[in-house]
């Protein structure tokens, strides 16, 4: 396993593959299917200070090679996440990346402070980009100033490294990346979903109760690759890459583009065993290719072969 070992700030990972936030709950369901210790890390579902029910249903819709979701950050809230979810996860030695969300900067600070205090999460992932929260969450993800200020404030109250999850719904994602880097981010996660909509022509209405939702899945992969490639040219910050990964080739493509590790989201719904399968395939591939360690891929980037 050592060839796949991937050490990122706060996350000492057996391999560079983790499930993406929101597509894996807090791990309980998948723990019935396989041993979570196989995973490089686990990105937890977004946690907010108070419990959230989320949006009305329907919350998901299928699109060509993708899906829209408007879950609306449903979660049991900070207190229960700590008392129930994190304590359940304690038996695993896989590092946790706790995704946090909020409406105001104070919300984020509260969640960040409390979660990092538990010493149970390896790192925090600031979800500044969820397109399904209307109250203002979106602005953090599109305005470099706000993103930087939020990063700075969360860093100040956190005892563990902080990754910022970038939104693709922006004109120039490198501006956001550089802004949060200057503000002290320890790493980047990219990309979150693209804002999209589907209209159900029989009713003539948007299919999702929330009208629009976040587009994920293979359809968005070319956009994710382009953005990671662009950001990688401008920063050496660790990048957790995601957006449509469902095959070994996808994992390799993301790492060549500049990702240090990858997260698998939507593909968990099609194949709940996708993460351990990809880990096995990657291990075989690295051996066949004779790579000493997986980091060579991303370090050499587009000169890999």
């Amino acid at each position: 396993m050592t060839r796949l070992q991937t050490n990122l700030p706060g996350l000492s990972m057996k391999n560079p593959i983790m499930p993406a936030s929101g597509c894996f709950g807090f791990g309980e369901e998948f723990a019935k299917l396989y041993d979570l210790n196989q995973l490089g890390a686990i990105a937890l579902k977004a946690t907010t200070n108070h419990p959230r029910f989320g949006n009305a249903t329907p919350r998901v819709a299928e699109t060509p090679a993708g899906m829209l979701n408007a879950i609306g950050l449903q979660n049991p809230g900070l207190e229960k996440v700590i008392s129930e979810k994190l304590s359940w996860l304690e038996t695993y030695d896989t590092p946790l990346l706790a995704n946090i969300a909020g409406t105001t900067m104070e919300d984020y600070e509260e969640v960040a402070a409390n979660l990092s205090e538990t010493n149970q999460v390896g790192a925090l992932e600031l979800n500044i980009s969820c397109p399904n929260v209307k109250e203002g969450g979106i602005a953090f993800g599109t305005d470099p100033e706000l993103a930087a200020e939020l990063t700075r404030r969360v860093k100040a109250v956190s005892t563990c490294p902080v990754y910022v999850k970038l939104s693709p719904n922006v004109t120039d994602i490198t501006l956001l990346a550089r802004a949060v880097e200057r503000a002290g981010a320890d790493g980047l996660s990219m990309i979150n979903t693209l804002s999209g909509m589907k209209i159900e022509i029989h009713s003539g209405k948007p299919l999702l109760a929330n009208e629009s939702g976040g587009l994920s899945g293979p359809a968005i992969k070319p956009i994710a690759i382009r953005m990671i490639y662009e950001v990688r040219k401008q920063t050496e910050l660790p990048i957790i890459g995601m957006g449509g990964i469902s095959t070994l080739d996808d994992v390799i493509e993301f790492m060549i583009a500049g990702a240090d590790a990858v997260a698998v989201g939507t593909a968990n719904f099609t194949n709940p065993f996708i993460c351990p399968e990809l880990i096995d395939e990657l291990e075989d591939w690295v051996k066949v290719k004779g790579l000493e360690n997986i980091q060579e891929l991303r370090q050499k980037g587009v000169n890999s072969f």
Partner: protein
Amino acid sequence: MIVVSNREIAENIFEMTLQGKIVQEITAPGQFLHIKPSSQPMPLLRRPISICNSNKQNNELTIIYRTEGEGTTLLSQRKENDSVDVLGPLGNGFSLEETKQEETALIVGGGVGVPPLYSLALALVERGVKVTTVLGFADAASVFYENRFKEAGDVYVSTIDGSAGNKGLVTDVIDRESLQFNRLYACGPTPMLKALEENYPNVQGSLSLEERMGCGIGACFACVCHTQNDPDGTEYRKVCSDGPVFPWREVVL
């Protein structure tokens, strides 16, 4: 699983028999499968389809589905011996224990809500429960399994246009025939379930719900619904893993 047969049994309604080991894991009528419609990567998401009946001896189960859109149309094109990527059995089915021997169960199904009720009917009869079934369809061409349900007891069919059985809704039939029952089991369109709940505010038994799904196993929160006694609106149930079967009046329809 392997396709044993796949045939149209009513207009746009297909009955597919599948073989595979997961049949052994079925614990109750009302559970469902999460099916990848095609062997190609697209369409991306699985489709939830109820288990209609199963046979542990030969590892076979039957599903019945209507060709609605892309996924079910692809499913209808699968041929004998094709292998189909199936996740399941998923969800919690109907609990049989709640109905005592000699009691009468009224089973009410609408359209493609009918399938999961078939194995329920058989299981109830096996327990010694008396079963009466009311099946509602759009029209004569979409009626299926009327005779199968007769194995379990009296069957009333209604169609909206009156082209088969009684004209009208299932609730009309129940009223007209003054059907009596101790327990009510239902699956079908939400308006039908709502009407039943309103007409029988004290009814015991359970209903099976549909909701659009992502994962089907409880991880993505696509399929949640509100609960009825929940002043601050944060309580929820997941249709895929807490349901799809719920007691009457537990969840908001």
